[in-house]
């Protein structure tokens, strides 16, 4: 049964920001995590792809972090409801960005 309250994930989920062209934003997030996982495996299994896989991962998590930042802004100031799952995902994505940021920095510093 559905109960509607302010501050629930329901409010966020039912908002117009929960989908883009019919694709749930949560599905985009899941696709991002899967892509990062796949690129991580590729980088590990096929060392020659290291440079490009690292940069691709960085690109994906950078996009993810910026979009998560936008969605968090929307949650706080537009929908005025916070969904803890969304916040968790945003923090995870930020963590990925920091990790990948270090990987990219090391790569750029290599002789």
């Amino acid at each position, binding site marked *: 049964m559905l109960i*509607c309250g302010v501050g629930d994930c329901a409010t966020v989920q*039912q*908002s*117009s920001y929960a989908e883009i062209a019919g694709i749930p934003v949560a599905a985009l997030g899941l696709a991002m995590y899967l892509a990062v996982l796949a690129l991580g495996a590729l980088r590990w299994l096929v060392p020659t792809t290291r440079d*490009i896989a690292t940069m691709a991962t960085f690109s994906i998590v*950078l996009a993810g972090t*910026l979009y998560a930042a936008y969605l968090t802004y929307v949650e706080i100031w537009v929908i005025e409801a916070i969904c803890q799952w969304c916040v968790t995902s945003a923090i995870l994505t930020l963590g990925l960005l920091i990790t990948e940021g270090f990987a990219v920095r090391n790569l750029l510093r290599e002789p």
Partner: protein
Amino acid sequence: MSTRANRARAEARVSRRARNRIEQQRKARQRRLIYFGSAVAVALIVVATLILANLLGDDTDDLPRIREAAVTIDPSIPREGRVIGDPNAPITLIEWGDYQCPGCGYVALNFTPQLIQDYVATGKIKFEYRDFPFLDLGFANAKRNGRDLTTASGESIRAAEAAAEAAAQGKFWEFHEALFSNQHGENKGAFSDGRLREIASKVGLDMAAFDEALESRKHIAEVVAMYDEGERIGISSTPTYEINGQLFQVQSYEDLVQRIEAALAG
């Protein structure tokens, strides 16, 4: 002589190899910088596209055509405004709801007809629906900005005003069920004034009076009063039911029946 020439040749070879290596390293660094630049550029383009698609999508999200109410309420049951049932029934069941709330839509289409048949038509209870329009945040924002609540608007509030006009015309329950049969997301136009008007016309309301009421906000004070009352007694989510001042929520029709039976027995 020949050893010196050999050494010179060897040194030249080494320095050529070193130069080559330096050149290769330079190229690799350059390639990585290009990758990095592309990575950042692609990320920015993707995010801009996502945000734009979302902002533009708001306007182009097409709404389905207005549907008939999915359920009908027996017109022979006595009613007074937003209350249905025998005025002398011993128990009054109140439902607090928001027309944009999917949970309220669920109970309206799945529990209410059964409830009316089992308890209201039989004279055991009378049933009242009260608006607690909060999902459009119209009242909450007005309150925060220190504005008069009667100036606030939003799709939940407008739907409640329209329903109040339907009540004034004696067709509250028909309009109520028709609204819930036409829910489509929240705050994205399902209950725009134009669509409320279409629903009203489908239900057979006096459209001149309906237009006048919505235009002049004839019922806004009544809606604000219900919202204030809801806040005062502690409504924070919908649908919330009330019997004898006791608030509760239900997971199933059986839950609701149990509460009513307990009240009837007590």
